[in-house]
């Protein structure tokens, strides 16, 4: 194999961390020596609105608390899609699980839900896009998307939408697919992408992945999550790693409200458990 072909080879797709400990994944970074205490210490997410784009959120779940707004993407009589306020709650528990993790991480944030799953067994790509577009244009500071689509026909529209969110100052925190397949929007640089690591001891420990496209790994194995009927279950998957990062974003923004999405990602990067800021700037 020549050097040229080696250079052209794409790195293997990394979407979770199961074979190495955080100590085995050190990242030396340039940048200020900021860390969790600077980034979100003492912050609770107050005044930051987080939108869960998912299957809906159960109202008044003890681990979720108040939901400030619930909407759903529904089909119109003429075959289009519209977003309506809903009392429908959660179709399966998944959105409630994500909301519970955001609430645990950022207890004073405002929680909102837009339901894009659960109405129909198919056509979810359009519903996902419609729900995400609505969330971006509502100006939610943080949007949690523990979902993705493998359908390539939505890629360009999704890319434009995530760029729009980036420039509007809405941070989209998106799950990598649970299996090693290409899906979207987590593949885009304009979002914060999240996969799972298997460490269960510290529920807030997350890592930066030196081999993106998945940029961060957060706890996703055997996670205790809120579920339907005010109860909890244990579950595994990138879906439950993502809302931890969304919650941390809410805390960072409540402490540093003028941060842009790229500053926020940098703060997450420099505060990750395996990143050590080295020189503090060029030498």
């Amino acid at each position, binding site marked *: 194999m020549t050097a040229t072909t080696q250079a052209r080879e794409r790195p293997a797709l990394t979407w979770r961390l199961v074979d190495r400990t955080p100590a085995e994944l050190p990242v030396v970074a340039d940048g200020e020596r900021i860390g969790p205490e600077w980034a979100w210490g003492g912050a609770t997410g107050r005044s930051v609105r987080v939108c869960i784009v998912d299957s809906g959120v159960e109202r008044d779940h003890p681990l979720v608390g108040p939901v400030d707004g619930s909407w759903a993407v529904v089909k119109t009589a003429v075959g289009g899609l519209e977003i309506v306020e809903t009392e429908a709650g959660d179709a399966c528990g998944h959105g409630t699980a994500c909301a519970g993790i955001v609430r645990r991480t950022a207890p004073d944030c405002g929680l909102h839900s837009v339901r894009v799953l659960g109405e129909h067994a198919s056509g979810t790509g359009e519903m996902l896009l419609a729900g995400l577009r609505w969330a971006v244009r509502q100006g939610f500071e943080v949007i949690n998307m523990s979902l993705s689509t493998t359908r390539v026909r939505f890629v360009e529209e999704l890319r434009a939408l995530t760029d729009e969110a980036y420039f509007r100052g809405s941070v989209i925190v998106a799950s990598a697919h649970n299996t090693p397949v290409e899906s979207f929007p987590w593949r885009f640089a304009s979002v914060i992408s999240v996969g799972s690591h298997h460490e269960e001891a510290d529920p807030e420990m997350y890592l930066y992945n030196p081999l993106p496209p998945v940029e961060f790994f957060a706890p996703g194995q055997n996670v205790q999550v809120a579920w*339907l009927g005010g109860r909890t279950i244990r579950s595994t998957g990138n879906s439950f790693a993502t809302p931890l990062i969304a919650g941390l974003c809410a805390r960072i923004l409540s402490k540093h409200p003028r941060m842009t999405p790229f500053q926020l990602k940098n703060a997450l990067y420099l505060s990750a458990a395996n990143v050590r800021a080295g020189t503090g700037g060029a030498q």
Partner: protein
Amino acid sequence: MTENSVQSAPAPEGGDQLSDELLQSVVEVARAIFGAQASSVFLLDEEAGELVFQAVAGRGEGFLVGRRFPASGGIAGWVVASGEAMVVDDLADNPAFDRGLAESTQYVPDSLMAAPLVHGERMLGVLEVLDPAVQSRSSLNELDLLALFAKQAAAALRVVADRRRLAAARGGLDPDGRQTALYLVESLQRLLETAPA
């Protein structure tokens, strides 16, 4: 799972022995590898918005094939809608787990693994594993293994779907229909033969 009811349905139409054996072997191997109480493959009937038990190994093996339930909710519904695999534990003593479906299958699991069966961009159905052995639960590696089996099951399910389509194309008309069609063709032929040039 929040599916509320299981409606009885006739055995899957159009299945043939080879396809059935293929799917049956997928669920049996999945059950064995995960040390599970049961494993099932569901076919998605998009038009009806339902999932249909297509192959079952272990609990329910004798009577579940052909039964249907709504694909719009519950864990299997989320897997279909999201295209993502899912593993959940602590279901048996949990009122959050709607037992409508589970009880009608005469078995309520404590733990459930579900993976989508996808071929290309098309959602074909769901592979479920009920009550895997304790060491197989809630681990990221097991989710990967489940996804591998789901890939195999999706290929098998695609074979079933293709064979059905072929069978439907071959036998598109019933005997009466074929007789009528033959009569129409003969009539047309006679008309052409007798028509003035």
